[in-house]
C-alpha cells in the first residue's frame, strides 16, 4: 500500500481504537469482571495496539524515506546540527564551521515539507465554506503519535498497580462525612480506564487534526478528559474545585483562540492547514511559494481589512491588493490570528498568566499527572504553537517569547519553596513548557519541539516515580519523606535518571542525557536571537540560562529531600515499600528513553525527524516592530552561540546543583536560616506570587458579583416593572370600578331613585275612583285652556 493510503489508515486506526475502548467501558464497564478489572485490559490493549500501529507508521515514514526527499541542502542542516552537538569530531573544527557558515548563506529548505493531508469527512458546507474532519500527517505527526502512544501505554500498565485500591471498597481518608466518619465507597477501577481511553483518543485526534476547527474540537475534549481525571475523586472538594478551575481557566484561553479562529475564518474561509484537493490551506496562503515562503499577508486578509477603500460590490483588482498589502492592510489580522491561537496554547500549556490551574490539577491520581499534565495534554499547547508556526507574524512570536520567558522564571521560582512533591513537579512542568514556548518565540522551532519530546519522557518518568513514592508513603509532603532510596531503590534511581535528564547532565561537547541536547539548543537559539535583537534578546537569554540553574536546584532538592538523608517520618518510612513490578518496569523503560531519546546520531533522531517537517521560508522583519529580526534556526549551531551556550549552562546548572547539595544533600547550609532571612521573598514564593488571590479578587469575585446584580436586576427591575405594570393595571381597574360603582352607577341610581320617588309620590293620585278622574280631567282641561289663552294674549 502506498504511504498516502497506509499512513492515514494506520494512524486513523491508532486514533480510533481508544475511542472504541471508551465506548465499550461506558456501556458495560461495571460488569467487566470484579469491579471492572477487565476494563483495564481493554483500555491497555487498545492503546498498546495504537502504539504498535504508530510504530509501523513510523517505520513506513523512516524506511520509506518519506521525509528525506526534500532539497539536498537540508541534509547539511542536520549534519551541522549533529556536528555541533556531536562527539569528539567537533574539535576537528574549522572546516566544519566553515561548512556551517556557507550553509547559513544559502541552504534552507525551499520546498514545503512532505505532508499527507486530506478530508476524512465533511461536517458541514456552506457555499465555499467547508468544515471537515481531516488529517495532516508529516514527520511531526508520526513522531507525536509514537511518543504519545508509547507513554500512554506505559502509564496504562503503571495504573494497573497504582489504581489497584479501586478494585475493592475504598476508604477515602481525605473526605470526612457529616457524621464524622471517613467516606466508604465502591471502587471505580473501570472508570479510571474509561477516562484514560477517552483521553488517548482525544489527544491523538488533536495530533492528527488537519484543520484548526478539528484541533479546537479535540482541544476541548482533552480539556474535558482532564476535568474528569482531575476530579476523579469526586467526593473531595479540592478535586472538584481543581477540575472546575482547570476547565474554566482553559476556557479563558479558548476565548482568545476562538477570536484567532474567527479572524482566520472570516478572512481566509478555510481552516485547513495544508492544501487539500487544490483548495489552498492556511499555510500556503500565509507562506506562498510565490513569495519564497516568506510570511505574507494573504489576499483574503488584505481585502478584509481594506473594505473601506472600495464600495461594497466592487471587486478588488490584484494590483490594488498588492498595493494595500504593502501599505500594511490586513497585517493586524494576521497578528490577531496568531496571538489568538496562541492564547489557546497559553491556557492549555499553563503559561503565564493562565498557569494557575496546573498545580491544582495535581489533585488527580498520579498517572494522570504523568500522562495528561506533563507529557501530553499540557504539551499540546506547544505542539499547536509549533504546528501553527508558519502563520505567526514576528510580532506574534515576540509575544510567545515573552510569555514563555516569564512563565519559565515564575514557575521555577515557585518550585523552589514548594514541599508537595507533585507540586514541585507541576511547577517544573510549567517552567519547562515556558522553555519550549520561549524557544518557539525566539525562532527555535525545532529546539522547542525537541524539548517537548525529551521533556515528555523525563517528566512522565519523574511523575511516575513520585507516584510510586506516594503510593508507598501515602503522603505528598516531602517534609515527611527522606532516606527512601533504601526502601525503594528502583524508584529512587530511575528518578535520579529523570532528575539528571531534566538537569541536562552531560559530558559537555561529548555526550549527554536527552535534556542536555534539547535545552542546549534552546539556549543557543536564545543567544543567537539576542545577537540579532539586542533590546529583547537579553531578557530571553537570561531567562533561559537562569532557568537552567534554578531547575537544577529544585530538582535535586526534590530528590535529596525524598530519597537521601535520614527518614523524617519514621512511621511513613517503615510502611514504605518498593512498588510492584508492573509499576517499576515502566519506570525503567521510561528511564531508558529519558537517557537516549535526545541522542542526535541515530538515523531517526528526533531533530532529524523534526527537520523534515520544518516549513520553509525566512521571516521577514516585523511590520509593527521593524527592528525585530528572526535569525535562522540553524545559525544557532554556529560555535559562537552553541559553545557559549554549552559552557554557560554547564556552569550555571552546576551552581544550582552545588547549592542543592549544600542545602539538602550535605546539609552544610540550613534552608530555615535562608527562609527567615528572606522571609518576604519566601512568603511571595510560598504563596505562588499571590496569583490565586489576585485572580480571585479581579475575576472570580467580580463575575459572581455581576451575576448577582444581573439576577437582582431581573427580579427587581424587569420583573418589578412587569409586576408594577400589572399592579397599575389592577389599580386602574379598581379605580374604574369605583367610578363605575359610584359615579356611573351612582348617577344612574340617583336618576332611578328620583324617578322612583316621583312615581311613588304620584301613586297617591291613582285612586281608581272614576269621579275623581273626571274631575281631574276637567280641572286639567280648564287649566290648559286658561294657560293657552293667557300665553296667546301675552304673545
Amino acid at each position, binding site marked *: 500500500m502506498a504511504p498516502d493510503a497506509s499512513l492515514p489508515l494506520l494512524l486513523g486506526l491508532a486514533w480510533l481504537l481508544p475511542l472504541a475502548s471508551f465506548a465499550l467501558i461506558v456501556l458495560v464497564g461495571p460488569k467487566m469482571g470484579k469491579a471492572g478489572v477487565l476494563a483495564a485490559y481493554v483500555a491497555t490493549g487498545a492503546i498498546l495496539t495504537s502504539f504498535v500501529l504508530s510504530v509501523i507508521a513510523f517505520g513506513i515514514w523512516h524506511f520509506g524515506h518519506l521525509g528525506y526527499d526534500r532539497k539536498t541542502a537540508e541534509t547539511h542542516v542536520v549534519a551541522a546540527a549533529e556536528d555541533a552537538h556531536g562527539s569528539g569530531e567537533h574539535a576537528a573544527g574549522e572546516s566544519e564551521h566553515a561548512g556551517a557558515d556557507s550553509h547559513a548563506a544559502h541552504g534552507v529548505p525551499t520546498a514545503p515539507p512532505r505532508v499527507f493531508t486530506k478530508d476524512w469527512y465533511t461536517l458541514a458546507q456552506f457555499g465555499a*465554506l467547508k468544515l471537515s474532519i481531516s488529517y495532516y500527517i508529516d514527520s511531526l505527526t508520526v513522531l507525536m503519535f509514537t511518543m504519545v502512544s508509547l507513554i500512554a501505554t506505559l502509564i496504562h500498565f503503571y495504573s494497573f498497580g497504582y489504581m489497584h485500591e479501586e478494585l475493592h471498597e475504598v476508604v477515602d481518608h481525605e473526605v470526612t462525612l457529616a457524621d464524622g466518619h471517613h467516606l466508604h465507597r465502591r471502587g471505580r477501577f473501570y472508570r479510571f480506564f474509561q477516562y484514560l481511553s477517552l483521553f488517548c483518543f482525544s489527544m491523538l485526534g488533536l495530533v492528527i487534526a488537519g484543520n484548526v476547527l478539528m484541533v479546537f474540537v479535540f482541544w476541548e475534549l482533552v480539556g474535558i478528559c482532564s476535568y474528569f481525571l482531575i476530579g476523579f475523586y469526586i*467526593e473531595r472538594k479540592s478535586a472538584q474545585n481543581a477540575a472546575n478551575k482547570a476547565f474554566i481557566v482553559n476556557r479563558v484561553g479558548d476565548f482568545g483562540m476562538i477570536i484567532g479562529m474567527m479572524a482566520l475564518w*472570516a478572512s481566509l474561509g478555510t481552516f485547513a492547514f495544508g492544501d487539500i484537493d487544490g483548495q489552498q490551506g492556511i499555510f500556503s496562503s500565509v507562506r506562498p511559494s510565490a513569495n519564497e515562503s516568506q510570511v505574507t499577508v494573504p489576499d483574503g486578509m488584505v481585502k478584509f481589512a481594506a473594505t473601506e477603500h472600495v464600495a461594497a460590490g466592487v471587486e478588488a483588482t490584484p494590483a490594488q491588493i498588492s498595493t494595500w498589502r504593502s501599505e500594511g492592510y490586513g497585517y493586524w489580522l494576521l497578528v490577531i490570528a496568531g496571538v489568538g491561537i496562541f492564547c489557546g496554547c497559553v491556557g492549555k500549556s499553563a503559561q503565564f498568566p493562565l498557569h494557575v490551574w496546573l498545580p491544582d490539577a495535581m489533585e488527580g491520581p498520579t498517572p494522570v499527572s504523568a500522562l495528561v499534565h506533563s507529557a501530553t495534554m499540557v504539551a499540546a499547547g506547544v505542539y499547536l504553537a509549533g504546528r501553527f508556526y508558519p502563520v505567526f507574524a514576528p510580532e506574534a512570536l515576540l509575544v510567545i517569547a515573552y510569555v514563555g520567558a516569564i512563565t519559565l522564571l515564575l514557575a521555577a521560582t515557585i518550585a523552589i519553596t514548594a514541599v508537595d512533591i507533585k507540586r514541585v513537579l507541576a511547577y517544573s512542568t510549567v517552567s519547562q513548557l515556558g522553555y519550549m514556548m520561549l524557544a518557539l518565540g525566539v525562532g527555535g522551532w525545532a529546539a522547542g519541539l525537541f524539548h517537548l519530546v525529551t521533556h515528555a519522557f523525563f517528566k512522565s518518568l519523574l511523575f511516575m516515580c513520585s507516584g510510586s513514592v506516594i503510593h508507598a508513603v501515602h503522603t505528598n509532603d516531602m517534609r515527611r519523606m527522606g532516606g527512601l532510596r533504601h526502601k525503594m531503590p528502583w524508584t529512587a534511581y530511575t528518578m535520579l535518571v529523570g532528575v539528571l535528564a531534566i538537569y541536562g547532565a552531560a559530558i559537555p561537547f561529548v555526550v549527554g542525557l536527552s535534556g542536555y541536547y534539547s535545552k542546549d539548543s534552546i539556549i543557543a537559539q536564545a543567544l543567537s536571537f539576542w545577537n540579532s535583537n539586542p533590546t529583547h534578546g537579553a531578557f530571553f537569554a537570561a531567562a533561559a540560562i537562569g532557568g537552567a540553574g534554578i531547575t537544577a536546584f529544585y530538582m535535586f532538592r526534590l530528590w535529596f529531600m525524598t530519597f537521601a538523608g535520614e527518614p523524617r517520618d519514621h512511621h511513613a518510612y517503615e510502611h514504605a515499600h518498593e512498588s510492584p513490578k508492573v509499576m517499576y518496569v515502566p519506570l525503567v523503560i521510561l528511564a531508558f528513553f529519558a537517557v537516549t531519546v535526545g541522542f542526535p546520531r541515530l538515523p531517526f533522531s528526533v531533530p532529524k525527524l523534526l527537520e523534515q517537517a520544518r516549513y520553509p521560508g525566512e521571516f521577514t522583519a516585523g511590520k509593527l516592530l521593524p527592528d525585530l529580526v528572526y535569525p535562522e534556526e540553524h545559525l544557532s549551531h554556529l560555535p559562537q552561540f552553541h559553545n557559549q551556550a554549552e559552557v554557560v549552562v554547564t556552569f550555571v546548572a552546576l551552581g544550582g546543583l552545588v547549592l542543592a547539595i549544600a542545602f539538602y544533600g550535605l546539609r552544610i547550609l540550613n534552608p530555615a536560616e535562608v527562609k527567615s532571612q528572606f522571609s518576604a521573598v519566601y512568603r511571595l514564593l510560598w504563596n505562588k506570587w499571590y496569583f490565586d488571590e489576585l485572580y480571585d479578587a479581579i475575576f472570580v469575585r467580580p463575575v459572581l458579583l455581576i451575576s448577582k446584580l444581573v439576577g437582582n436586576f431581573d427580579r427587581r427591575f424587569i420583573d418589578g416593572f412587569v409586576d408594577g405594570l400589572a399592579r397599575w393595571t389592577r389599580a386602574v381597574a379598581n379605580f374604574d370600578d369605583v367610578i363605575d360603582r359610584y359615579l356611573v352607577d351612582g348617577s344612574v341610581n340617583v336618576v332611578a331613585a328620583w324617578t322612583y320617588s316621583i312615581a311613588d309620590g304620584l301613586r297617591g293620585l291613582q285612586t281608581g275612583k272614576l269621579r275623581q278622574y273626571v274631575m281631574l280631567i276637567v280641572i286639567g282641561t280648564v287649566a290648559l285652556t286658561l294657560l293657552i289663552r293667557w300665553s296667546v294674549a301675552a304673545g
Partner: protein
Amino acid sequence: MESELLLSLIVFLPALAALVLMLPLFSNQRPDAIRLLSLAATVAVFLLTVWMALDRPAGSDASTRFQVGEASMQDTFARDWIPSFNIYYFMGVDGISFTLVLLTSFVTMLSMGASWNITKHVKAYCILFLLLETGMLGVFLALDFFLFYVFWEVMLLPMYFLIGVWGGPRREYAAIKFFLFTLVGSVLMLIAILMLYFNSDLGRLSRDQLQASRVPNSVVQQVEQGGTEPIHTFNLLALAQMGQLPDSPFDKELWLGHSLQWWAFILLFIGFAIKVPVVPVHTWLPDAHVEAPTPISMILAGILLKMGGYGIIRICYPICPDAGYDLAYVVAGIGVLSMVYGAFAAMSQKDFKRLVAYSSVSHMGYVILGIGVWTAWAGTDYNSDYWSMGMNGAMFQMIAHGISSAGMFFLVGVIYDRVHHRNLDEFGGLFAKMPVYSGLAFGIFFAGLGLPGLCGFIGEVFVTLSVWTYSQALAVISASVVILTAGYILWTLQRVYLGPEYKGPHEDGIYPITPREIAIAAPLLAFAILFGVYPSAVFRYMTPSINKTVGDLATWTKEVKQPRIEAERSSEMELAQKP
C-alpha cells in the same frame, strides 16, 4: 399519501385523539388508558414525520416524503377557508420547518412519556396536551399568515391551563404572566398581519412569482385578468416575494419617517422575540419553567421557544428585508445581550430549574445572533456564505437546544420527583446514589455547555464563527460567553452531582433512575451525540432551504438595497456640497 392528507393528519391527529378522549368512555378512574391513548397519538405523529424524513425509494418521485436537497416548499396544498378575505387552509413544508416539525413530534412524544407522574385530572391534562401539539405543529406547517396566527393562539390557551392548573405553588402568577406576555406579542403580530394584508397586492407579482408562491390557479387567472382593485393576500410566500420587490408595496412611509415594513418588522420582531425570549422580555420564562410540570417545561423549552426563531426566519426577514437590513445590528446586538445576560443570570440562581431556564435565554441568544449577522459581503467580495453559515448555525442551535434543554428539564424533573426540592445548595453526592442518572445528566449538561462531540457545540461554534465578518465587537463579546457557560454549568454539576453525600431533605426518597426515565433521557442524549458528531443528519434537511432564504435576501441586498444606500449617500453628499 396525498400531501393534504399527510400534513393534515400530522397536525390534527392529536386533536382527533383529544376529541376521542372527551368521550365518557375514558374516565379519570382509569388514567393509564388515557395516557396510553395520548402516547399512542404522539407516537403516531412522530412515526408519520419520521416516515416523511426517510429517503424516498428510487423511482417513486410522486411520493409525499420530504425531498432532501429541494430548497423550496414541498407538499404544499391550499383550500378555500374564508374566501371573502382570501384566507386559505394553506400548508407546506420546507427544510426550515421540517426539521422543527421533527423536533416537535419527537420532544412531544418524549414529554408525553414524562407525563406519567401527572395524577391530577389526567383526562383534562391529556386533552390539553394533545391540543397543544396540534397548535405547535400547525404553526410550523401553516403558510397562510392568518392560519399561522390561529395556530399560534391555539397553542397559547392549552399552555396557559397546563401551567395554571398542573403547576407548582405560584402557578397562577406564572400562567398569567406567560399568557399576558405572549398575548402582547400576538396582538402586535396581529396588527402587523393586518398592515401587511391591506397593503399587499398580488397584482404586483409576475406569473412565475405567483406560481412559486403556490398561489391557486384561480387566483392567478384573476390576477392576469387585471383589475383596479388590489388583491390582498395572507400567503406568506407571496408576501415575501412582495417584500423583496424593488418597488415593494410595503416601502411606503407610514409614521415618523419610517416605512410600513419597518413598523411591521418591529411589531413582528417584538412578537417573536417575546417567544424566544430575548432580554429584556424574557422574565416570563423562568417563572413559567419553575412552575410548569416537568413535561410542560420540556415542551416549553424544547419547542415553544423555537417558534420565535422560526417566525423571525420565516416571516420577519423575508417579508420586511429593508427593515431587517437596517435593524440587523439591533437584532444581533439583542442576541449577544441575551447570551451574556442569560449566562450571568444563570450563574446567580439558587433554583435548579431557574438556572436551566436562564441557560435557555443564553443559548437562544445564539439563535438570534446567527440570524442577525446580515453579511452579503465578505471584505470586498460579494459573498453570503458567512451569513448562510450563521443562519444554519442558528437553526442548528434551535434543534440542538431543543434536545439539550428538554433533556435538562427532564433531568431536573427526575430529581425533583424524588426529593421535592430544587435548591441547588441542598444537593450533592448524587453520582454515588444514582450513577446512571448522573451519567446521563453529565452528557446532556455538557451538550448545553457546548462540548465538541455533542450537539450544542456545532450550533454555537458555527454562529460564533460567522459573526466576525459582520461585526468584530459582537464577535468578541459572543466568544467570551464560552467562559461564563462553562462556569455556571460546571458549578451546577459540582453542586448537584459531586461530593461525598447528599445534603438536602428526603434522602430516603432517592432511588435509581427507572427504565421509563431512561427511555426518555437516553434518546435525547443519543441524539445529542449523533448531531454532535454527524451534524449533516440535520443539515441535509435544512441547509438547502436556509441557503435559499439567505441567497434571496443577499441578492436583494446586492440588487435593491445597495443601490438604494448608494443613492442616499450621493444625495447626502450633494446636500453637503450645497452651501
